[in-house]
């Protein structure tokens, strides 16, 4: 029983929201304008031409698709509904921005991982270089002494030759 009430409430709320949005849109006398259409078309790619956003595509097919968006907006469809409709009809390739779920999420994830990994690697390398510097500095004093001993010896031998 409780479930039924909840569901009906939910339906009522959604319906109410839909009415509200439609109402809000209807207050603008020009709705749907070309700009409203372009806002949505911008997020879509032409389903048939290579790499062309729908809002700038010039083919007749794209003009028809834009007209379709316009009539859908006029019929009260929301932005998400229209985009979902296009994905369902023509596949995921119409989305300008790849989805963040499933296999496609890899396109977003990998560069982030790569950049983080890059930072870690740079940090590691710098640390090793700093250690190398510190280590190189320590034995230097003893090496210098040895070299002075050798120098003294050489000077002695040179004197003997003279």
């Amino acid at each position, binding site marked *: 029983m409780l479930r039924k009430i909840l569901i009906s409430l939910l339906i009522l709320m959604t319906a109410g929201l839909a009415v509200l949005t439609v109402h809000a849109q209807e207050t603008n006398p020009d709705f749907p304008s*070309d700009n409203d259409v372009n806002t949505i078309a911008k997020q879509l790619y032409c389903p048939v031409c*290579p*790499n062309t956003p729908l809002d700038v595509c010039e083919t007749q097919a794209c*003009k028809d698709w834009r007209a379709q968006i316009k009539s859908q907006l006029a019929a009260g469809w929301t932005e998400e509904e229209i985009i979902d409709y296009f994905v369902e009809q023509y596949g995921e390739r119409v989305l300008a921005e790849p989805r963040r779920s499933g296999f*496609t999420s890899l396109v977003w994830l*990998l560069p982030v991982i790569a950049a983080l990994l*890059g930072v870690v*690697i740079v940090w590691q390398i710098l640390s090793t270089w700093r250690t190398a510097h510190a280590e190189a500095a320590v034995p230097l004093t003893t090496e210098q002494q040895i070299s002075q001993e050798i120098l003294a010896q050489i000077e002695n031998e040179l004197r003997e030759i003279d």
Partner: protein
Amino acid sequence: MLTDVGLLALVLAFVLGVYATLASYYGGRTNQDTWVESARNAAILTFPLLTISVFAVVYALYALDFSLAYVADVSSRAMSPFLRVTALWGGQQGSVLFWAWLMSGFVMVVLLRKWERDRELMPYVIAVAMLTTAFFIGVVVFITNPFTRMWHFPGAAELTMAIFQPAGAMPYIPEDGSGLNPLLRHFGMIGHPPTTYLGFTGFVIPYAFAIAALITGKSSGDEWIRATRRWTLVAWIFLSIGLVLGGRWAYDVLGWGGFWGWDPVENAMLMPWLTGTAFLHSVMMTEKRGMLKKWNMVLIILTYSLALFGTFITRTGVISSVHAFSKTALGPAFFGFIGLTFLGSLSLLFARWDTLKSDHQLESFLSREAAFLLQNMLFLAITFAVFWGTVFPLISELVTGTKITVGPPYFKRVTGPLFAALVLLMGIAPLFAWRKQAVRKLGKAIWVPFAASLVLSGVWGYAHRMHPAVYPALWLVTFVVLAILMEFWKGVRARIRGRGESPWVAFQKLIGRNRRRYGGYIIHLGVVMIALGFIGDAYLKSETQGTLQLGESLQIGEYSLRFDSLDYYPGSDGREVLEATTSLFKNGELVTQLNPRRDYFVVQQQPVTIPGVYSTAAGDVYALLVGWEEIGFQSSTFKIYINPLIGWTWLGGLVMILGTLIAAWSPSRDREGATYTLKPRQASLSYLAGD
């Protein structure tokens, strides 16, 4: 007749290219100078031979010899003689020949100049450079030959393509050609391919020297870097010009109100530029500190492979569809060659890994070395993000069978923060000292530009307050510019005080005495200007679209566009022009007349939308004619973009060229070696440590 000579020259060039590769390698291996000498002559001769071949194609394009399939494809009677000549790089066959020709030109110039100085490296420089050149000539000869003719077998439905007359076939010569793709008939597209190709092919010189250094085992020194530094800069600036011209072309011709669309073809050009820029910087670490020797090798191999990859993507169209790959033998041939180049070079590098000992020592995380390393990492991360986004549709199609699009939102979101970090680094890294930077000194050096930039960008950002991100973006740009200008000011001031020079003389001498450094700063200023264009594109752009009756106006911001008339007339080059006359008003006052057009190319059945643009220092008003009433021309649909800051992009390109000229200009021969080398502090004693 001339085409036969061209074909003959092409085949000869291929034979000589293969011979030069083999002979120089053999001569180098067996220490026989006569073989190397002979290979060098063969390599030099390749260029004049290819020049004959290129001339034959250009002449056929100009004289409209439609018996050649290539001419029939890209040239036509309606095209102006100038356009016919540029059709050399308007299609696949011509552009691959053009590529090979430019590369052989680079090789020839290097061989004529550098012969005595790097005698040991030379055999392998010739071998590596000529291997690539021979590959490209081979592709032209066997796969995509511009001298191919069309033949018709009696009764056959389709034409046969062959160089020589097949038995029983009649030559087919069409009345007219289909002509150059209308989109390519623009000054940007006329200058863009040659400059881009010069950039791509130019990288063969540092690459060949690097591989030669690896083969001879002379890679521990940095002779190969010194010998090729200027070549790298030349290749890099041509690639940069190519990128800017490509952007300008897109802006003027493609009609979507922007200059960079993150299209696969654009990305293919950007990637070698990114790694090439990283390489230009990392070689400084080797020259000054003897560091990053292996890394330089990795970067030049990557840059060169990506340049080949760029040609592969643009010429095969593999990214837009997997099926384009095997349409001709070009795809597999290229793919194989890139794989060979990349893997072969890397395995050679690993075989020589131990010879590339560097002196890696560092005193502080806050040092020029650390900044360089971070900068290299950022360039590589951006390259990876661009590469991944470019090839991902292909991977997705292969793995899941779903075609997807990776559009500008991905590239902007992923590379945006990384580019911002790079720009910031560009401002502060030049202030860092080698080895160790004292925090207090750094604070002293940057507080003036920092404070000034906060104030300036606050005011500037307020003028553009459309998006909150405008403030940090403009701050970044202002800060970097001020930090760079501060460097100039400090240098000039020191000269004025120390030597009593006048400010102008001090400024000139400052740059003249230290061309690399100050040329580099000027290039950085150019980069910041281009960044401004991108900031405008990302945050400040606005657009509107509307259908107007004659006399009506469309409002956007402080501008309004009035539709005055629409006219139709036949234009040149076989196009029908539909041109709108509109008046642009700013706050009610007439500023200018704009004529957005729609050119329809009848033969190709292709429309081209040409914008009407009003440019000011603050930004462009960019109007497009996107629709019209067919009968009576009483109403038209216009789209208007306001593109703030976009003019900076083109100016930035010019400033980059200026900076490169200063940095690459050789003052005089004897001073060439006079750049200082900073050895590790204990270098003179370090040999004892190992004893």
